[in-house]
C-alpha cells in the first residue's frame, strides 16, 4: 500500500486514542483533526473554524488541551490522546457530561465535545475552580448558543460532585 503513488509520502504513525493503541498511515502534515475524524471515525471532534479560535476541535494530548486543527499528525506520534468519545468510562458518564446535561451546558452541541474536554483539563489542574478560573479555562472555546452562563454552572457543579459518574443508559 505504501508504494503506490497516492500513498508515497505517508508515514506510519502510532499513538494511543482513548486508551487504544492505533497504527495508521497518514501524510505527516495532515491535521490531527482530520485523521481523528476521517481515519479513526471519531466524529465527536468537530471543525468550527480551522484556525484555532473556536476550540471545537479540542482534544487532550498527553493530558493537555490542544486544538487538533493546529496539530500536524506527525507530532502526535507516541502521544496519548483523549477525545469526547473516550471520556465516559464504559457505560458511565463522566461527571462533566452529567453536569452539562443537568445544567443546560449543551444547546446545539457543536462546541460541547471541545468544551467538556476543556473543562476536564481545567478540573485536572484546578479541582475546585473559582468563576474567574472557569472563565479563563474556557476562554479558548467559543459558544454561540449559551452565553456561557450554564456552562459555568455545569463546570462548577461537576467540581462539587464527588459522587461516582452515573449510568449512560439512564441520564438523570
Amino acid at each position, binding site marked *: 500500500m505504501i508504494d503506490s503513488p497516492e500513498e508515497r*509520502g505517508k508515514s506510519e504513525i502510532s499513538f494511543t486514542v482513548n486508551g487504544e493503541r492505533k497504527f495508521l498511515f497518514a501524510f505527516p*502534515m495532515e*491535521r490531527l483533526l482530520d485523521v481523528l475524524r476521517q481515519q479513526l471515525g471519531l466524529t465527536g471532534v468537530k471543525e468550527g473554524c480551522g484556525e484555532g479560535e473556536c*476550540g471545537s476541535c479540542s482534544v487532550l494530548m498527553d493530558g493537555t488541551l*490542544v486544538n487538533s486543527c*493546529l496539530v500536524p499528525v506527525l507530532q502526535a506520534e507516541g502521544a496519548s490522546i483523549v477525545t469526547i468519545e473516550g471520556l465516559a468510562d464504559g457505560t458511565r458518564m463522566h461527571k462533566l457530561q452529567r453536569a452539562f446535561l443537568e445544567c443546560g451546558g449543551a444547546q446545539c452541541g457543536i462546541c460541547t465535545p471541545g468544551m467538556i474536554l476543556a473543562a476536564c483539563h*481545567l478540573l485536572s489542574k484546578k479541582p475546585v475552580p473559582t468563576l474567574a478560573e472557569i472563565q479563563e479555562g474556557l476562554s479558548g472555546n467559543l459558544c454561540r448558543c449559551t452565553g456561557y452562563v450554564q456552562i459555568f454552572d455545569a463546570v462548577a457543579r461537576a467540581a462539587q460532585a464527588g459522587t461516582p459518574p452515573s449510568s449512560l443508559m439512564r441520564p438523570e
Partner: protein
Amino acid sequence: MRSDPREYELVAPGNLQAVVTLLAESPGAWLPIAGGTDIMVLYGAGNLPARKLVSIWNFPELRHIEVLGNEIRIGAACTYTDIREHKIIAREFPMLAQAAGWTGGIANQNRGTLGGNIVNASPAADSLPALLAYDAELILVSVRGERRLAYAGFHTGYKKTRLAPDELIQSICLPRRFAGYVSHARKVGSRNAQAISKVCIAALARVEEETVEEIHIAVGSVAPVPLRLVETEGIVSGKIVDESLVLLARKTAAAEIRPIDDIRSKAKYRAAVAANLVAEFLHLLNGSKHA
C-alpha cells in the same frame, strides 16, 4: 482546510543536532515548526509558502528552563503554559508570565512557544515587549556553534530578524536583576481573551526617593517591530514624575511610535492608547490616584 497535505513534507529527526545539520545542508529550505500555532493557521488558510518543515516540538534540549544565579534561560520551545507555571518566572519576570497568559486560549498556550513567538516576529506578538523590557538576550544555535546577542535589535524590520537561515533560537536569557522594580504590563485587544493585540505595553522602573533611576518602556503593535521607547525613557530617567513630565512623556512616546490603520484598529486610536498606557505607568510610579 485550504492546503493539500500531500504537497508538504514534515520530518521529525528528533534531536537538536539533527535539525541544525538539516538546516545547514539546505539553508532556508526547511521551516522549523514547534507548536504550530502560527504556522498551522497559515497552512489551514492556504497561505503557507514553505513546503518543507522540520519539527522541533518537545525537544528536551529546547524545552527546559534553567535557573542560574544571575539569569534564567528559557528554552525556545517552552510553551506559554511552561512559562506560566514556572514559579521563578512568575515571581521575577511577572510581565512575561502575564503575556504568556494573554496569548490565545489555554489550548494554544499549551502548544505555542516563546521561540516561535519571537521568530514569527509579528509586531503584535504578546511576549515580545516583556522580553525587551527585561533586557533579554538570545542564544542562537547552528552547526557553527552558539552565539549570543541582545534581543534588542533582533527584529530588523517587519517580520525580519537577525536569525541566519540555518539557525534556531536555543534559549532566551533574562537577567535576574529586576527584583524590587515596579513593573506593569497591559494588552489592549478587541476582547479579553483570544485577541490579537491592538496595543501592548511592558514597562518597569526602579524608583528611589521618588526619582526614577532606571526605566524601560516597551510597546507592541505600534510599529513594524516591538519597540523600546528609548527617547521617552530618556526624558523620564533621573527625574521625579509629575504632571508636566507625564505630559512630555506622552508627547515623546507618540512621536516614537509608527502605528498603522489595519483590519483590527486605527493608527490614531493606537497612538492615543499607547500614550495613555505610558501615562498610566508613570502614574503608577508616583503612586498617583490616576493609576
